[in-house]
C-alpha cells in the first residue's frame, strides 16, 4: 500500500517537473518572497496550486503531509502532495494542485502532518490569479518623432479578457531608470515623449484588475527593443535660421558695396605697369620701342630725363687702366688661391676686400701710381692705380700679349668678388674698393677720378674687354654684364660724359634705348 502510494507520488512528481516545472518553480520562488502566509496559493490557468516550505530536515518526505480542501460546507477532499526542489535557494517545497478548482466560493485548505493540522487557510480562488506574462510583445516605430507603438497579446484566458490591467515599463538602452505606464484592458499603447533616435527597452506584465478577479503581478516579459525615429529639424527653427542668414547676407553685401573700392584696393592691388610712362607705346606701337622712340623723339626725351631720375642706373666712372707689373707677381701669388674660389655673395667679397686692404704696401703703391698718372697722362697704359672712395667699374683691357697677365692680374681680385654670368669668355669686373684699374685708351684724368671721352667712341677691343652696366639708384648698385654683341653695338654709339659733381646730363641723347643717368655720382656710361 505504502509502496503503491510512493510510486504514484513519484510518478506524479516526475510529471509535474517535466511539464510545468519551470513555470511552477519561477512562480513558487516569487511567491516565497512576496507572500507572507504559511500556505501560499495561486491559480495558474484554472487550477489552484498551494505550497508550503519544508520545515525541517526529514527522512521521510511526502507521506507525512496530508492536504485537504473543502468548499460550500461540503465534505473535505484530499489532494496529492508533491515536492519540488528549488535549485536556486536549495530549498524544498511541497505543493498540491487542486483539480477543477471551483471559483467564486470560499475554499478551506488544510495541511496535516501526522494527523496534526499544520496550516489552515480559507480563500476564494478567483482572488489569487497568477497569470503568465503577455505574449508576442512587439515594439514598432510609429512614424512620428519621439513615439513608439507597443502591442502584445494577453495570456490565454477565458472570461477574463476585460478584467486585466497591464503595466508597460520602458527605459533607454543601457539605463536602468524606467518609466511605467498602466493600461486597462487594451493591449496596445503608444509611448510618448521619447527621445528621438534612441534605442528603448520595453517590458510588459499583467494582473487582474481587482474587480471581479484579483491576483498577483505576472512576471515581466523578455525585453523588446525599439528605436525611435531620428529627429527632424523643427520647421520653425529652420525658418528662423534662414531668415537670420538672409539678413546677415544683405548686411554684408551692403557693407561690401559701400566700401568696395577700398576693399578692392586692399585685396587686389593693381600691378604697377609702366604704361603711363610710355604714352602710346603699348597702344599705338604695340610695344615696339624703337618706333615709339623715333616717333617721340624730342618731346619725350626731355621729359623722360626727369622721369627716370630714380629708376635709371647711375652713370659709370671709367677709370684708366692700370697695369700692376710692379707688384704683379706678389699680388698674383697672393690672389691665386683667392681666385680659385668662386664667390657670389657680397659677404665673401667684403672679406676679400678686407684681406687685400691689410696690405699696406698695396695702398702706398697706389698713391704713387696715382701721382705718376697725374704727371704723365700719356702713360695711361702704364700701370697706375687710382685711389678713390667711390665705387668703380674697372674695365678689362689688354693687348693680346698682355692679355694673360693683365687679365690675370686685373681680373683676379675682381673675379673673386664677382662672377661672370653667362659667358665665360668675358671677365667682368665690379666695383672694388681695393683695387683700382683704369682703362686704357684715350682720355685724361679729371680732377679726382673721372676722365672724359668727349666725342669719342669707345672702340670695342674684342673679347679681351669686358664691359659692365652699373645702375646706381643712390641706395644700391646693380651690375649687369654686357655681352660682346652689345659691346659691339655700343661702340657705334657715342659716349657722353658728365661731371663728377652730380651734374645732370645737359646733353641730349640722340640714341634710342635706355640711357644712364647720374644720380649721386657722376660717370660716363655707354648708351645704347
Amino acid at each position, binding site marked *: 500500500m505504502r509502496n503503491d502510494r510512493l510510486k504514484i507520488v513519484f510518478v506524479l512528481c516526475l510529471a509535474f517537473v517535466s511539464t510545468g516545472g519551470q513555470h511552477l518553480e519561477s512562480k513558487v520562488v516569487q511567491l516565497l518572497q512576496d507572500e507572507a502566509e504559511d500556505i501560499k496559493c495561486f491559480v495558474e490557468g*484554472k487550477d489552484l496550486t498551494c505550497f508550503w516550505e519544508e520545515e525541517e530536515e526529514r527522512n521521510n518526505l511526502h507521506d507525512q503531509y496530508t492536504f485537504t480542501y473543502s468548499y*460550500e460546507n461540503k465534505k473535505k477532499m484530499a489532494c496529492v502532495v508533491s515536492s519540488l526542489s528549488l535549485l536556486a535557494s536549495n530549498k524544498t517545497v511541497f505543493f498540491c494542485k487542486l483539480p477543477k478548482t*471551483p471559483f*467564486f*466560493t*470560499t475554499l478551506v485548505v488544510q495541511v496535516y502532518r501526522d494527523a496534526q493540522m499544520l496550516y489552515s487557510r480559507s480563500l476564494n480562488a478567483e482572488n489569487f490569479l497568477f497569470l503568465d506574462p503577455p505574449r508576442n510583445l512587439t515594439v514598432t516605430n510609429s512614424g512620428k518623432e519621439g513615439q513608439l507603438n507597443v502591442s502584445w497579446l494577453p495570456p490565454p484566458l477565458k472570461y477574463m479578457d476585460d478584467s486585466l490591467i497591464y503595466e508597460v515599463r520602458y527605459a533607454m538602452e543601457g539605463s536602468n531608470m524606467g518609466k511605467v505606464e498602466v493600461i486597462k484592458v487594451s493591449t496596445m499603447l503608444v509611448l510618448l515623449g521619447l527621445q528621438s533616435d534612441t534605442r528603448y527597452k520595453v517590458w510588459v506584465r499583467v494582473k487582474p484588475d481587482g*474587480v471581479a478577479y484579483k491576483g498577483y503581478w505576472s512576471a515581466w516579459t523578455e525585453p523588446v527593443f525599439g528605436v525611435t525615429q531620428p529627429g527632424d529639424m523643427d520647421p520653425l527653427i529652420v525658418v528662423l535660421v534662414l531668415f537670420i542668414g538672409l539678413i546677415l547676407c544683405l548686411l554684408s553685401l551692403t557693407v561690401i558695396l559701400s566700401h568696395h573700392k577700398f576693399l578692392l584696393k586692399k585685396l587686389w592691388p593693381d600691378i604697377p605697369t609702366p604704361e603711363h610712362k610710355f604714352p602710346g607705346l603699348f597702344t599705338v606701337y604695340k610695344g615696339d620701342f624703337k618706333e615709339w622712340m623715333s616717333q617721340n623723339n624730342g618731346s619725350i626725351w626731355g621729359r623722360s630725363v626727369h622721369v627716370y631720375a630714380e629708376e635709371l642706373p647711375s652713370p659709370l666712372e671709367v677709370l684708366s687702366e692700370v697695369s700692376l707689373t710692379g707688384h704683379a707677381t706678389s699680388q698674383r701669388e697672393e690672389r691665386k688661391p683667392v681666385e680659385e674660389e668662386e664667390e657670389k655673395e657680397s659677404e665673401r667679397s667684403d672679406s676679400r676686400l678686407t684681406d687685400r686692404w691689410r696690405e699696406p704696401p698695396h695702398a702706398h703703391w697706389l698713391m704713387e701710381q696715382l701721382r705718376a698718372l697725374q704727371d704723365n697722362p700719356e702713360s695711361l697704359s702704364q700701370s697706375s692705380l687710382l685711389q678713390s672712395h667711390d665705387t668703380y667699374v674697372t674695365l678689362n683691357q689688354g693687348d693680346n700679349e698682355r692679355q694673360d697677365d693683365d687679365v690675370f692680374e686685373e681680373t683676379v681680385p675682381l673675379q673673386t668678388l664677382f662672377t661672370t654670368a653667362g659667358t665665360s669668355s668675358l671677365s667682368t669686373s665690379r666695383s672694388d674698393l681695393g683695387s683700382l684699374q683704369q682703362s686704357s685708351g684715350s682720355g685724361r684724368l679729371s680732377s679726382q677720378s673721372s676722365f672724359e671721352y668727349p666725342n669719342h667712341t669707345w672702340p670695342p677691343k674684342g673679347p679681351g674687354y669686358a664691359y659692365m652696366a652699373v645702375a646706381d639708384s643712390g641706395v644700391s648698385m646693380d651690375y649687369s654684364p654686357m655681352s660682346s654683341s652689345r659691346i659691339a653695338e655700343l661702340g657705334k654709339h657715342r659716349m657722353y660724359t658728365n661731371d663728377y659733381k652730380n651734374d645732370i646730363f645737359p646733353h641730349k641723347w640722340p640714341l634710342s634705348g635706355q640711357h644712364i643717368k647720374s644720380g649721386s655720382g657722376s660717370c660716363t656710361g655707354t648708351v645704347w
Partner: protein
Amino acid sequence: MGSVAERSKALDLGSSLSGGVGLVSVLMVFVWLGENQVSPLRPICDLRVLDHFVREARDSEVIMRGCRGGCGVMKSYFVPLTSVDFAVWEHTDVHGQAVEVQTGLSLLDQALNNAMKTVSNSPLASVLENNISNIHSLGQILHSLDLQQARSTVLPDDSVPASAQTQEVSSLPELLQVQSSFLRGKVRLLLSAAPACQRQNS
C-alpha cells in the same frame, strides 16, 4: 311633460353608456397594445454597471467588518450556490444559466430584506438598502437581454423552498460574502456571454 323628462333621462343614459363603451374600448386597445408590444428595451451590455454593483457589495462587506453594535443577529438565510466550475458552466446553455442567475438574485433579495429588519446600524442599513436596489437593477438588466428566463418577478416571499441550488448561511457577513461572490461569478459570466451582447460587439 313626462315624455320630455323621460326623453332627457334616456339621452343622458345613452350618452353615458356610449362614453363608457368608448373608454373601455380605448382601454382595451391599450391593454392589447401593452400585452403585444415588442420590448423596445436596448440590451444593457456594459459590464461596468455590474462592476459598480460588485464594488458596492464589497463596500458593504467592509462596513460589516467595521460594524460595532446593531449589526444584525445570527439568523439563517437561504442563499444561492456561488461556486463556478468552468467546465460545468460552459456546458450549461444560456437559458439554464439565466434561470440559475435569476433564481439566485431573488434569493439574495429575500435574504437581504430579512437581514435589514434586524440591522439598526444606520451605515450598514443604508448599504444594505443599496445592495437591494442593485439587485433589482440587475433583474432589469437581465430582462433587457431577453434571455427567455422565467418571468417570475422578484418578489419578497418567505416561502421560497430550499432547493439543491441553495445553501444556508448563518450570519450577515457570510450573506454579504455570498452576495459578492455571486455577482462576480455567475452573474458576470452570464452577462459577458449574453448572446444579445455578443451580437452587439461582433
